[in-house]
């Protein structure tokens, strides 16, 4: 079976590469895989501290700190995972020049693998949410079965952007340098730390289509409300993700034959 130019062999390669980059990322440091858990945990902890004690935020219509914390993590966790995925995807081709130059495989797989390995912080965030919910006596709702859909949408979306950025970075190395700043801007411009209602009505109508926000909503609906995500968010996100992925793939394949000159 061939899908978008990938076949079974590529799937196997993708699995090997994913395993490889996971071990690479955490190998050689004293705590090894523990950092995979500790680092997102630290980030989540800092933001929870800041937004509950320094700038106390309240969720409209909800009492107490706990629901706010869960709301915060269920939005910031996916974001951490998206930015991690985008960051590694951007450097994936240049960083793996050794493999790209010496092994015959589809280098398109590298940004996709980055999007997948970026899921580690998401898993940590999920773990934290489960603990907090158990603490607050909240039972997991059956709506959580919708989460895999959100995860798949995220992988496709991040892969698409990653394909674009990863290929661009081969030619314009500044891409990887600017990316963290751009990501920070997007983070604070998106209603992830604050509710959408914080914006004026006019802006809301536009911002509601921000894919980063929509993606966060796909996670927040099942986790917080125990409801399936709104159908339009899923539909909208599917269209956006697939379009971004195919666009990124087209872009990557267009530039791929020129990688040889730049690596």
């Amino acid at each position, binding site marked *: 079976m061939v899908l978008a130019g990938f076949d079974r062999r590529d799937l196997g*390669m993708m699995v090997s590469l994913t395993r*490889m980059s996971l071990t690479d990322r955490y*190998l050689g440091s004293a705590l090894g895989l523990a950092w995979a858990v500790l680092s997102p945990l630290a980030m989540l902890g800092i933001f929870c501290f800041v937004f509950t004690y320094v700038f106390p935020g309240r969720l409209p219509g909800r009492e107490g700190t706990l629901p706010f914390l869960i709301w915060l993590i269920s939005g910031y966790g996916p974001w951490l995972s998206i930015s991690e995925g985008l960051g590694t995807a951007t450097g994936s081709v240049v960083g793996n020049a*050794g493999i790209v130059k*010496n092994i015959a495989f589809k280098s398109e797989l590298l940004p996709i693998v980055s999007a997948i390995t970026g899921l580690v912080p998401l898993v940590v965030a999920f773990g934290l949410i489960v603990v907090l919910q158990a603490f607050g006596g909240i039972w997991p709702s059956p709506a959580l079965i919708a989460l895999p859909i959100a995860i798949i949408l995220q992988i496709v979306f991040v892969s698409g952007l990653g394909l674009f950025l990863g290929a661009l970075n081969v030619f314009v190395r500044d891409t990887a340098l600017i990316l963290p700043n751009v990501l920070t801007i997007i983070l604070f411009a998106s209603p992830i730390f604050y509710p959408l209602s914080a914006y004026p009505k006019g802006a809301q109508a536009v911002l509601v289509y921000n894919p980063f926000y929509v993606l966060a909503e796909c996670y927040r609906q099942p986790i917080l409300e125990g409801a399936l995500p709104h159908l339009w968010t899923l539909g909208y996100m599917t269209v956006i993700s697939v379009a971004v992925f195919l666009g990124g793939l087209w872009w990557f394949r267009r530039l791929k034959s*020129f990688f040889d*000159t730049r690596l």
Partner: protein
Amino acid sequence: MSRAIAITCSGVSKRFALVDQGSAWRLAFSAHSGVPVFEALKNINFEVPKGQFVGFLGRNGAGKSTLLRTIGGVYSADGGQIAIKGKLSGLYELGLVGNPQLTGRQYAERLLTIHGEVRRRQQEMIADIHEFSELGDRFEDPVFTYSAGMSARLFFSTATAGSYDVYLLDEVLAVGDQHFQAKCWRRLRDRVSRGASGVLVTHDWAAIVKMCETAHVIDRGQIIFSGPAANASRYHLYGEDAKETFEPGIARFVARPEDPMTARPGQDLVIRAEAEIMQPANVGAVAVIERLQPGFGWETELMSREITPVGQKPGRYMVEVRVPHLPIERGSYQISLHLVMPDPKLPGRRVALDGFSWLNGDGLRLEVEDPLNREGLTLPVRWKVACA
């Protein structure tokens, strides 16, 4: 009978865009036309028969490594077709790719996984790699602690651990100590004898002569010479202008001597050829016997020190260069036969007038067979000195 072909390359070309800071943006965001390109490979055609290694010789930057990567599918060709039959293993550069924190064992595991070896077979292969590389306890150390030679051992052992049908090797055997090199050659020969084929790319002509029957010389992305490995190495070393120049109009050979000649060790060898002297000169003949064949290398076996006189006046002569008690063993040799005369300007030097030489592509072959009997003098000889 048509021979099985392992690799076919027809009309393969590869261009690299010359990218600088400015054109990088242009390349990324606008049309690709207008970006200056460098033609790394131009219309490369060749075939590798099954069970053979074909060599590629060339100077640095001639396009050898690009060609190898293009054959291996790491680079995509811009034109032409490449067909490979069978499972492929490529050693494109000796640097260890990947994370240097990995131990030798992890590194080997990783490469095998990437090559799609199933986990079950891997353990067996890892044991083989461990043994062949002779890394011993260092196999469990991170690869960044390895010396260049040790990395080469690990890399070669891993890339040849499985039995592949086609090997692509780049300068691989230039590193590593003699002992390991010898092992590598043995392993490659063993693979070839089991029907594997491959391409060997190097500027080490001796390796080409050892491993390949045919070789190509590549320069500025084009094949400029194809032929037997020995001739290709010669061409690579000295180029087109290495062809000997002869002083014309004084003397020449009328006919080509018997070719190939056969002889037996210990017997007298007489090389006969008819020559014509056109101008009065003190013409003589010299012969050189060289052995140059895969598996042995290149060495001069025998050189006639004395000039065999031919004649001084114009006319036809029979040249007879005599090698008494041929002191060389069974094998295939090359004979170069030349007509010479003393150089009038430089006493002691000779001027070549005409000749047959494999350097020019018309050398004479000599097949030395087994000696008829074990009597007489055959080298090596052992003397015993006794006091009377």
